[in-house]
């Protein structure tokens, strides 16, 4: 399973957000971090891949097949997009809300296998103890974890996470990222995540894509990308890549 994006142009109405984005082959099991400042087109890129925004030009190919040609249901099953800023007041339990994400593509009747998948997912994300809690009563971190659960319960081939760690404390940031890593080890999907925290990106991603004003500025290994001076220019700061004593990458940034 591979994902390829060629010369993708997309936007809303007349406003063009992406100006010819090309991402060469992303193999399954790869964790791609998409970095770039606000309004650089990260969400639009994800929505185009998920088929929620129809490209004006260019293509998103999943195993050589244009995603816009996929039927809505198949697309939702194969490509799971987790939107930004999630939260709602619905009177549903955590279990129900994950079940309903699964049921959109698996027929009307709830089968025993569906329930197994929901409980497996909750267990994998360490949400078991919250299964019968109302989703309205959860903390921000728990809510975000439930959103991740709704995304991976479908066992998609492509997982798109739009700022999965925003508004989370350090513990939850790490636990979300490592549960996604675990999921990747189990089922080898392609994962793309829009991230604001460059250090978190350096720690978890195999590959980084730097996006600015709807164009790809750089694409490569974290250690190469984060060392580029374009990083600083894009974010309008001065950056310096260091290696910590534990061997982790650390981006030091200050205002010019």
């Amino acid at each position, binding site marked *: 399973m591979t994902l390829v994006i060629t010369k993708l142009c997309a936007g809303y109405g007349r406003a063009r957000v992406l100006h010819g984005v090309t991402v060469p082959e992303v193999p399954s099991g790869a964790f791609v971090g998409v970095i770039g400042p606000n309004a650089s087109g990260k969400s639009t890129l994800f929505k185009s891949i998920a088929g929620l925004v129809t490209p004006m030009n260019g293509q998103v190919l999943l195993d050589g097949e244009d995603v816009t040609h996929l039927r809505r249901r198949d697309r939702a099953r194969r490509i799971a997009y987790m939107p930004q800023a999630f939260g709602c007041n619905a009177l549903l*339990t955590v279990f129900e809300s994950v079940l*309903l994400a699964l049921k*959109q593509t698996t027929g*009307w009747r709830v089968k025993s296998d569906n329930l197994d998948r929901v409980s497996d997912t909750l267990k994998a994300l360490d949400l078991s103890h919250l*299964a019968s809690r109302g989703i309205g009563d959860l903390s921000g971190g728990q809510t975000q974890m439930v959103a991740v659960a709704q995304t991976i319960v479908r066992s998609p081939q492509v997982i798109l996470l739009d700022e999965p760690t925003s508004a989370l404390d350090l513990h939850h940031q790490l636990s979300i990222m490592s549960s996604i890593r675990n999921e990747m080890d189990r089922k080898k999907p392609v994962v793309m995540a829009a991230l604001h925290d460059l250090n978190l990106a350096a720690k978890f991603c195999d590959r980084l894509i730097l996006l600015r004003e709807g164009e790809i500025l750089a694409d490569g290994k974290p250690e190469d990308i984060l060392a580029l001076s374009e990083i600083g220019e894009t974010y309008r700061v001065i950056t310096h890549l260091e290696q910590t004593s534990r061997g982790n990458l650390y981006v030091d940034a200050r205002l010019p």
Partner: protein
Amino acid sequence: MSVDTSAAEMRQGYALQVARRYGMILAVALLLVVSFLLDVTTGPGNYSLSTVAEVFADPMSHGVRLKVIVWDYRLPVAVTAVLVGALLAVAGAQMQTILNNPLAEPFTLGVSAAASFGASLAIVMGFSVIPAVGPLLVTTNAFVFALATCGFILFAARLKGVGSETMILFGIAIFFTFSALLALMQYMASEDQIARIVFWMMGSLSRASWEKIGIGTLLLCVAIPFSLYRTWPMTALRMGEAAAESMGVDVARLRVEMLICISLLAATAVSFVGTVGFVGLVGPHIARLLVGEDQRYFVPLSALVGALVLSLTSLISKSITPGIIYPIGIITSLIGVPVFVSIILSTRRERLS
């Protein structure tokens, strides 16, 4: 910190929850049956339940007089109460889901105002939208106007994009327009006509007839299965529009489909009994408190609660002063509101389980 819950326990928890939800539905259904039976046995002339039951089984068993009372008067009224309550509550439940607003009900979109105007047009001008409907003039006019309003909202929403705010704003605009037109009609009407308009607007079950019941039942028999068929996308919509879209739900299409369904339900209910507010709001609200928002349980229970509320209202409207049947529109609000407020105040948020 966290108690380890095994997969088996989680499934057991879910199974228990489902069982509890079916239990709730069954309990409300039983209450509805009791309320319905009381409704049929209550009224001028005290006949015992057994007498009524005998007439029910064999119409002529107690003579023509009782047959007329039970079959031509009480039964249609009691059935209409149940039916209209269910129609309004289902419409309200769906409307609250697609507009993502717990205050939405069929009347929020100006449906009742349009229906009242249609009725007043028939009463004052004798004007009929569909020619040659005879005695059904007022009802058809109300229906056509209610449906046309929904059609307009649908059309406007398609033009401007089917956002929930747009639809609510349109509804409010329509409400004010038709209220003004209604006032104009009343200004032009004679005293007798004003009385008829006011009485129509109060809502009354005495306009019940078997034909109307047939139409309403048919509609409900289509609407509820259809809602159940769309149950997963509708539940997903409660997670928010973006989340639902990403799960593969065609939100715009779902909204249009549901709006058509709601339009038919609301227009039918309103044209049958006049303005009966509140049921479309209370039914879904109580149902939500009892079973949460998984639409598989929420929609049927909303229908049952709505039916129960209106059936009880019908019972109360006959019982306050013997011999007088008060308009149900008045009762729903006067008695319903305090009950509703006390329900809201006495339930905690974490009731869901």
